[in-house]
């Protein structure tokens, strides 16, 4: 149960009510005062003071001054009239309750409205600030554009001037040439006429060459010496022998590819060196039959003549000797294709592709072949999607190959045909 504060004193003027409420020893904060149009409450737990005002007041402008041990309220009346008393007299409990609730509701609404209004103003401020900065930036940009435009115009004007200058100079030069020519003619005639011992101090040359230096023309007048340029004789022919920094690949050197290329070269070198575990049968073989390269050639020859089984055998032996040479697997895959051992063909092509990493321009050819062979095998097994993937990979490496392109198109049609039927 709150403790009611009942000691208060008040006086009034036509427009305002002055209420003074002693709060001895109590800490009053602005939060403890709650005021609406017709209801005033001061709550400092456990103390409570409330008043249902006689008439409505303007609660926004009314003030409360918290001084030592007293709160002084200045309440401005909505209607200028004299109140009979501070509070409404016959206020029973229910009415009080109602009024209180109303008051609280109204206060809430007001608070909400206030926050809304604040938000709106904040938005507007932000927008304004943004617009202001945008305008500034626009102005800056425009200034730079203007500068550039001016510069551009100036330069075009200069260029035009310069062009005209050049034309004028050309004309002048042409004129001078004509004049010089005429003078030459005249002097020639004079010489013929004179025929005396004293020669004209200058030498006549068969051609009058105008020597122009960079920038402006210096016109040698006829009276000056015109010497033909003494060019040195052509050099004595000679050869200089040079050496190049070595490079294995025929393509140009690029720093970013160096790492990959080194890896590929290293792999190739290793592949040559590995000789897999000895097998007792190997001792029966002749020397040359132990060389995987020789075996590869033999296999190739058999493939060409059509002896596919024989070729497969030879490649098998070669692989046992050295299982790191990708070309062996590649060629064996081709044989298997011809023999319609499709799964084996796929295996061998895949193994070849594995060994053909990293991808460098050097092993492009091999990779294209591997993809094509594997693709063919897939298609013959009716696994068209996988086949198409491989064909497209091959096409990516070598986009210019027409046969691959045509085959890829065929496969696509096949796929579309089967999906339509099912």
């Amino acid at each position, binding site marked *: 149960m709150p403790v009611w504060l009942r000691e208060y004193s008040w006086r009034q003027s036509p427009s305002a009510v002055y209420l003074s409420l002693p709060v001895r020893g109590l800490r009053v904060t602005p939060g403890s005062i709650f005021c609406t149009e017709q209801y005033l409450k001061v709550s400092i737990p456990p103390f409570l003071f409330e008043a249902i005002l006689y008439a409505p007041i303007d609660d926004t402008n009314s003030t409360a001054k918290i001084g030592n041990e007293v709160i002084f309220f200045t309440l401005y009346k909505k209607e200028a009239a004299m109140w009979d008393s501070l509070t409404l007299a016959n206020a029973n409990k229910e009415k009080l309750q109602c009024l209180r609730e109303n008051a609280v509701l109204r206060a809430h609404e007001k608070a909400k409205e206030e926050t809304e209004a604040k938000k709106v103003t904040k938005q507007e401020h932000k927008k304004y600030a943004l617009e202001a900065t945008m305008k500034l930036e626009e102005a800056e940009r425009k200034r730079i554009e203007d500068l550039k435009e001016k510069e551009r115009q100036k330069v075009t004007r200069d260029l035009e001037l310069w062009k005209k200058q050049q034309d004028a100079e050309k004309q002048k030069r042409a004129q001078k040439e004509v004049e010089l020519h005429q003078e030459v003619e005249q002097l020639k005639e004079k010489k013929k006429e004179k025929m005396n011992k004293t020669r004209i101090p200058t030498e006549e040359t068969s051609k009058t060459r105008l020597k122009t230096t960079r920038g402006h023309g210096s016109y040698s007048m006829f009276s000056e010496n015109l010497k033909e340029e003494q060019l040195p004789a052509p050099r004595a022919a000679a*050869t200089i022998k040079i050496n190049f920094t070595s490079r294995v690949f025929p393509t140009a050197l690029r720093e970013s590819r160096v790492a990959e290329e080194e890896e590929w070269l290293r792999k190739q070198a290793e592949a040559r060196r590995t000789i897999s575990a000895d097998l007792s049968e190997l001792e029966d073989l002749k020397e040359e039959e132990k060389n995987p390269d020789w075996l590869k050639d033999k296999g190739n020859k058999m493939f060409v003549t059509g002896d596919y089984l024989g070729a497969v055998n030879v490649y098998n032996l070669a692989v046992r000797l050295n299982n790191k040479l990708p070309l062996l697997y590649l060629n064996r895959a081709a044989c298997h294709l011809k023999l319609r051992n499709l799964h084996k063909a796929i295996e061998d092509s895949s193994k070849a592709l594995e060994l053909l990493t990293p991808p460098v321009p050097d092993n492009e050819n091999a990779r294209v072949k591997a993809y094509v062979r594997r693709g063919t095998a897939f298609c013959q097994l009716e696994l068209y999607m996988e086949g198409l993937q491989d064909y497209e990979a091959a096409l990516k490496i070598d986009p210019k190959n027409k046969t691959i392109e045509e085959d890829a198109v065929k496969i696509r049609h096949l796929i579309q045909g089967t999906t339509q039927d099912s």
Partner: protein
Amino acid sequence: KIEKPKSIKCGTFGATSLQQRYLATGDFGGNLNIWNLEAPEIPVYSVKGHKEIINSIDGVGGLGIGEGAPEIVTGSRDGTVKVWDPRQKETPVANMEPVQGESKRDCWTVAFGNAYNQEERVVCAGYDNGDIKLFDLKTMSLRWETNIKNGVCSVEFDRKDVNMNKLVATSLEGKFHVFDMRTQHPTKGFASVSEKAQKSTIWQVRPLPQNRDIFMTSGGAGSLHLWKYEYPAQRSKKDSEGAEMGVAGSVSLLQNVTLSTQPISSLDWSPDKKGLCVCGAFDQTVRVLIVTKLNKV
């Protein structure tokens, strides 16, 4: 408009006099021809100089610049660099070829330099394996070589007709190197500074004729970059053995612009108007540009 049977790869006016204005071209078949553009049916000079395409050509001694005999140098995919004199038919004046048995590398670019008097000449050649070789024509020997780790697309001296001052070499992978050519160290060669400009190949470099410290590079991404070279406080210093060693300066980017999505493969400055330049790109356009404020650089 004139058409010839074989595609032409490169050309230069560098070796002709200002009146004659003959164009020297190298074509895809390895032929070097010099044409009089007023009578283009028959070349003034023609020789099947190389077995494969002539990648690059340069001329010196003409246009009123420099002294000495007019000469043309061609670099070809067959790995040789040959110097021709238009007055001597059929045989080159100098031939830089690989030693017997050596596998050949593509020569991608050639340039003349150091032509400050009648005898001195130097040819610089860049190859696809990153080699740069400097040949001295007066002594007919290899003067210097180095490898810049990327195929060399273009070499240019900052001026052909002075004691060789700077050499810019551009390469694949967006790098270029500027060599200070005034001081050659017996083992270390020339000092250089290198810069990575863009991710793509730098196809061409051309120094501004009016100011040899400014040069423009054109890139595979269709962009042009304008650079300025600043000399160091001291261009040469002594190393531990007392031999003179060059000191490279620094390069700073002045401006760049992207003109096209295709590589800009060739570029040239006008010798008359400072800042006027023309460039040709793979998108089949020729663009004329003007660079302003070069006086204030």
